[in-house]
C-alpha cells in the first residue's frame, strides 16, 4: 500500500487536470504533460486544498461551537439551515459577504482594509506548516514549531493596526488590550513549548508527534499543558480571556467598526486561530495522529485513519475550550496581566524544570520511557 500524502494527492489531481487539458487541446499536449508543469500546478493545487480544507474546518468548527454552546445553555443552537443547522454558517457567511463594507469617515483607509486582510492571511499561512497526518504536511521543516508560533504572534500587530485606524475609542482600547495581553501571554506560551521541545528534542512538529509514541506528553508535562492551554485561550481571545472584545464594556472591542466582509475576515481568522490552537495542543500534548498501542489496530489502520483521529482529537480539544467559555466569567485586564506575569511565568519555568528532570530520569511511572534519541 503506497502511502497517500497530501503532496501525492495534489500531484495526482494536477496531472489529471493537465492530461484532460492536453486531451482537449492536442497541440499543447506535450507541453502540458511536462513533469515541471505538473509539479508547478501540483504546488498550486496543494495550496488550494489546504485553503479549502482549513476554511471548511473552520466553518465546521463554528458549527461545533454553536451546537455545543447551545446544549450547555439548554437550547439547541442553529437548527434551520441544513440538517441540524450544518449549513447555517455558510448562510451567515454569504450574508456577510454580500453586505456593504462601511468605512467610517475618519478612518485611515490603508490600515482599515489591510489590517483584517493581513490578519486572515497570516492565519491561513499557519496551515501550510502544521502536519495533519504522516505525510500530510508541506515537507520537512526542522523548525516548524517555531515558525508556527512566530506567525501566530503576528496577530497583535494587525489587530492594533486595524483598531488604531478605525478611529474609534472602543476599538483603540480593544487594540491596546489585545496587544498587551498577547505579548504578556506569549512568554509563558513559549516557555511551555520549550518544555515539550526539551522532552522531544526537536522543533519539528512531526518529530514531536513521533516522540510521543510511548506516551503522550500531557501526562508527564501536565503543568506545561495547563500553561499552554491558558496561554492559548489568551492568544485566541476567548472567554475568560476575551477582554479585547469584551462586549459588555467595549461593544466589540477592536472590530467594533467592522462590518460585512471585513468582519467576516476577522471572524474567520479568529476561528482559524482557534483551530490552530486546538491543533497545536493535539500535536504537542495529545500525540497528534497517533493512537496508543492498546487501541485495536482495526481502528487505526483504515485509510486516512491518521487524519480521522487527528480531527477527532482537535474537535474534542476545541470542545474543552467551548466548555470553558460557557461556564466562566471574563477576568479584568489588570487581573489577566497579573495572572500572566505572576502565575503563568513561574508555572512555565517550573514546567521547563520538570521537562529537564524528565529527560534526565528518562522513565516515569506510570507513563513509561521516552524513546531513545534518533528514532
Amino acid at each position, binding site marked *: 500500500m503506497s502511502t497517500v500524502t497530501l503532496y501525492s494527492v495534489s500531484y495526482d489531481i494536477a496531472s489529471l487536470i493537465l492530461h484532460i487539458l492536453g486531451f482537449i487541446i492536442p497541440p499543447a499536449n506535450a507541453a502540458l504533460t511536462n513533469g515541471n508543469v505538473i509539479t508547478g500546478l501540483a504546488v498550486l493545487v496543494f495550496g488550494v486544498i489546504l485553503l479549502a480544507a482549513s476554511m471548511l474546518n473552520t466553518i465546521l468548527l463554528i458549527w461545533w461551537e454553536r451546537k455545543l454552546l*447551545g*446544549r*450547555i445553555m*439548554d*437550547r439547541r443552537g442553529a437548527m434551520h439551515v441544513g440538517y441540524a443547522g450544518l449549513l447555517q454558517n455558510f448562510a451567515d457567511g454569504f450574508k456577510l459577504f454580500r453586505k456593504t463594507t462601511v468605512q467610517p469617515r475618519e478612518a485611515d483607509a490603508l490600515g482599515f482594509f489591510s489590517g483584517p486582510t493581513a490578519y486572515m492571511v497570516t492565519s491561513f499561512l499557519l496551515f501550510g506548516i502544521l502536519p495533519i497526518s504522516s505525510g500530510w504536511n508541506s515537507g520537512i521543516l526542522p523548525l516548524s514549531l517555531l515558525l508556527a508560533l512566530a506567525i501566530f504572534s503576528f496577530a497583535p500587530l494587525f489587530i492594533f493596526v486595524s483598531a488604531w485606524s478605525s478611529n474609534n475609542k472602543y476599538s483603540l482600547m480593544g487594540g491596546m488590550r489585545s496587544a498587551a495581553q498577547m505579548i504578556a501571554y506569549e512568554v509563558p506560551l513559549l516557555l511551555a513549548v520549550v518544555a515539550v521541545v526539551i522532552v522531544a528534542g526537536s522543533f519539528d512538529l512531526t518529530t514531536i508527534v513521533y516522540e510521543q509514541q510511548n506516551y503522550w506528553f500531557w501526562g508527564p508535562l501536565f503543568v506545561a499543558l495547563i500553561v499552554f492551554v491558558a496561554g492559548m485561550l489568551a492568544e485566541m481571545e476567548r472567554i475568560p480571556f476575551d477582554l479585547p472584545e469584551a462586549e459588555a464594556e467595549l461593544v466589540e472591542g477592536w472590530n467594533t467598526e467592522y462590518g460585512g466582509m471585513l468582519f467576516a475576515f476577522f471572524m474567520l481568522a479568529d476561528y482559524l486561530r482557534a483551530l490552530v490552537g486546538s491543533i497545536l495542543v493535539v500535536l504537542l500534548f495529545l500525540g497528534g495522529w497517533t493512537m496508543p498501542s492498546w487501541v485495536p489496530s482495526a481502528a487505526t489502520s483504515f485509510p486516512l485513519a491518521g487524519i480521522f483521529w487527528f480531527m477527532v482529537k482537535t474537535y474534542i480539544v476545541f470542545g474543552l475550550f467551548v466548555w470553558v467559555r460557557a461556564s466562566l466569567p471574563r477576568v479584568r485586564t489588570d487581573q489577566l496581566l497579573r495572572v500572566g506575569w505572576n502565575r503563568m511565568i513561574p508555572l512555565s519555568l517550573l514546567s521547563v524544570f520538570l521537562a529537564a528532570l524528565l529527560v534526565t530520569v528518562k522513565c516515569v511511572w506510570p507513563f513509561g520511557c521516552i524513546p531513545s534519541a534518533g528514532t
Partner: protein
Amino acid sequence: MANDVTATEKPEQNPVLWVVRPMATAARQFAKSLFRPSTIVYPYERLEDPKFRDRLEVASGKPLGVGAVWDNYRGVHALNIATCISCNLCAFSCPDICIEMVTVPGGDPKHPKKCPAIDYGKCSYCGFCSDACPEGCLTMTTRYELSTPKRAEMVYSPEKLYDVFRSKLPMNPIRLARPANEDAILLDPPLCIGCNACARDCPTQCITMLDIPKPESKPGEKLPRRIWKEPVVNDSDCVRCGTCISVCPKECLFWGTHK
C-alpha cells in the same frame, strides 16, 4: 439586628477548585439538555398548537404544562359579526383609540350595522374591549403572528376579524368580574324634549318612548316646545353603553343609581 441577617456569608474559597465548580454545573446542564433541551423548534412546533402540547411538556423537561396555559393568551381578536349589536363599547373602552366602528353589510339603510375594525399597529392587547363587550362577540384568541410588509394591513376589518373567529382558535375565557351594582341610565325629566334620538340609536332597543300627559297651559306661561314623550330604559336589557347619553341633544340622560 444580627438575627435578621439572612443573606449569607461568602462561601469559603478554595483555590484548588478555582473553576471546577461552575464547569461541573455547566457539564451537568449539558448532560441534561443533550436529551431534552428546554427550547422548542418554533416554526415547526408551536406552544398554542394542541398537537404538540403533551409532547412538549414531556420533551422539554418543564414542570409546567406549557400548552395548558396557552388558551388564555390575549392575541388577535375574534369577532362574531352575527351577534355584534354595534354598541360601540369596545371602541369607547379602548385606551389606545385603535378601534374604529366601520359599516358592515347587513344593517338596514337607516341604521347601518357598525362593527369594530382594529388597528394592530396601535393595539396594546390590554383586553379592555373584550371585557367590555356585553354580548361576548369580541374575544381574544391565541393568534400572535402579525408581521406584514404593509402597515395598512395591520388594520383588521370586521370581516378579517370574523375570519379569525371562524378559524376556531382557542379564545381567552377570562372575563372581567363586573361590579354588582352597575349604574343605570337616569333621566332629568324637565330637560327632555322627547326627540326619540336615544330610542332610535339604542343598540339593544331597550328604550321605549312613552307618552306623558301634556300639562295644562296656564295663562301667561308658555309651554316648552317638545314632543310629549319620555324615554324609559329597560334596565335588564340595557348594556350600559351610554350611546343614548352621547346622542342626547339636551344632555338630559346621565349615569346614576335608582333611588
